[in-house]
């Protein structure tokens, strides 16, 4: 079994009081709670902190943990022999995680208490929560993910039409219940992987469309990439930067019928460097053109 130093995780002394443990946990939870911190690894860190707190905040579990003695984190160690009989259920060659052991411990003692009261309490199975990081192609064609759960893996079909940040619930497909209790649920949080070209907003996709100044001035026929192949669009003469061209139905597919739209956002880009010949032509254009882009500045600064 791999040792984990729960005191180190919470950054406290081994002799810390219950109050100090609670304070340390709350301070760290505020930093790493997945609802508060969007930083990379925050969720993982929060799980470690919660695991440490769950064991150290329960006097019975803390005592059992302290009885293990001190080891280096990650060090392989053998729990005292009586642990086998106290907690072990599965085959001994199986790699057991320390957290599972302590989870079982609380579970069993609460079960014992309930049985002592003469009631066989139904206990709901464990919920399974997972994040599915999917590509745009996967969400637009539908895909499958496999989740680990107590009592065997479960394969889940992700339907067409899910979007970034969406949460799916699959009732009664989590861990099995006991004492006649129902199975837990599966919760799947969808996250879209960034795409080099398309930015999703709901079911719509945004694509930046760079144009040369002459394309913007004279109009152009341009081929764009889309999720289902290339499409031709017409840029009208006199196009402005920031304008959106809407390609209906070329976004992400929605549940049921239809799909979002693809928006090409126009951007006018200058070549760097601008060649001699180009500069010459721009000078000529500047002389020939009476275009005034700032008529609203004409009143002067005193008008406010």
């Amino acid at each position: 079994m791999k040792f984990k130093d729960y005191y180190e995780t919470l950054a406290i002394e081994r002799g810390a009081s219950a109050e100090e443990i609670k304070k340390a946990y709350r301070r760290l939870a505020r930093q790493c709670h997945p609802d508060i911190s969007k930083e990379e690894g925050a969720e993982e860190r929060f799980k470690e902190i919660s695991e440490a707190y769950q064991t150290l905040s329960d006097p019975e579990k803390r005592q059992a943990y302290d009885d293990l003695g001190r080891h280096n984190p990650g060090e392989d160690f053998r729990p005292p022999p009586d642990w086998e009989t106290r907690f072990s259920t599965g085959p001994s060659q199986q790699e057991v995680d320390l957290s599972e052991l302590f989870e079982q411990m609380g579970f069993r003692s609460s079960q014992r208490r309930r049985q002592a009261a003469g009631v066989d309490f139904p206990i709901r199975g464990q919920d399974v929560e997972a994040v599915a990081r999917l590509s745009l192609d996967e969400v637009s064609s539908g895909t499958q993910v496999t989740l680990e759960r107590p009592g065997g893996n479960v394969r889940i079909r992700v339907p067409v039409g899910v979007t970034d940040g969406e949460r799916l619930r699959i009732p009664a497909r989590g861990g099995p219940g006991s004492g006649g209790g129902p199975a837990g649920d599966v919760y799947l949080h969808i996250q879209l992987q960034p795409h080099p070209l398309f930015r999703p907003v709901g079911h719509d996709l945004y694509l930046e469309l760079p144009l040369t100044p002459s394309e913007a001035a004279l109009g152009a026929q341009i081929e764009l990439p889309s999720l289902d192949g290339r499409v031709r669009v017409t840029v009208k003469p006199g196009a402005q930067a920031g304008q959106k061209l809407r390609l209906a139905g070329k976004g992400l597919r929605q549940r049921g019928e239809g799909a979002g739209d693809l928006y090409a956002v126009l951007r006018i880009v200058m070549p760097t460097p601008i060649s001699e010949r180009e500069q010459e032509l721009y000078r000529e254009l500047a002389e020939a053109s009476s275009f005034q882009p700032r008529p609203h500045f004409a009143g002067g600064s005193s008008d406010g």
Partner: protein
Amino acid sequence: MDDDRLIPEDLLIPADGDMPVESAELLAASGLAYEELVELVEFGVLQISEGSTGWIFQARAVHQARRVVKLRDSFGLNPPGMALALTYLEKIEALEQRLRELECLLPR
């Protein structure tokens, strides 16, 4: 893997779907106490429609309730604190969504 069980698509319940959830299921799935649920409904954080046998919630209420239970357990919140935290989080997320939309209009 052989022991995988394929789940039919119709069992997936999206948060914005119109699959209604009753109070008992919401409480069992979230770990929320009944008194807390009543307060969160009174605050207007969880929306209800009145069914023939009691309150009916939208599917997204399960996700809201689970989230608020995690915040309760991490920070020792009471129902008014839970209501406030959830309101702010949802407001922040709506703003983040709007920000993402606007960012799409800017050059990268």
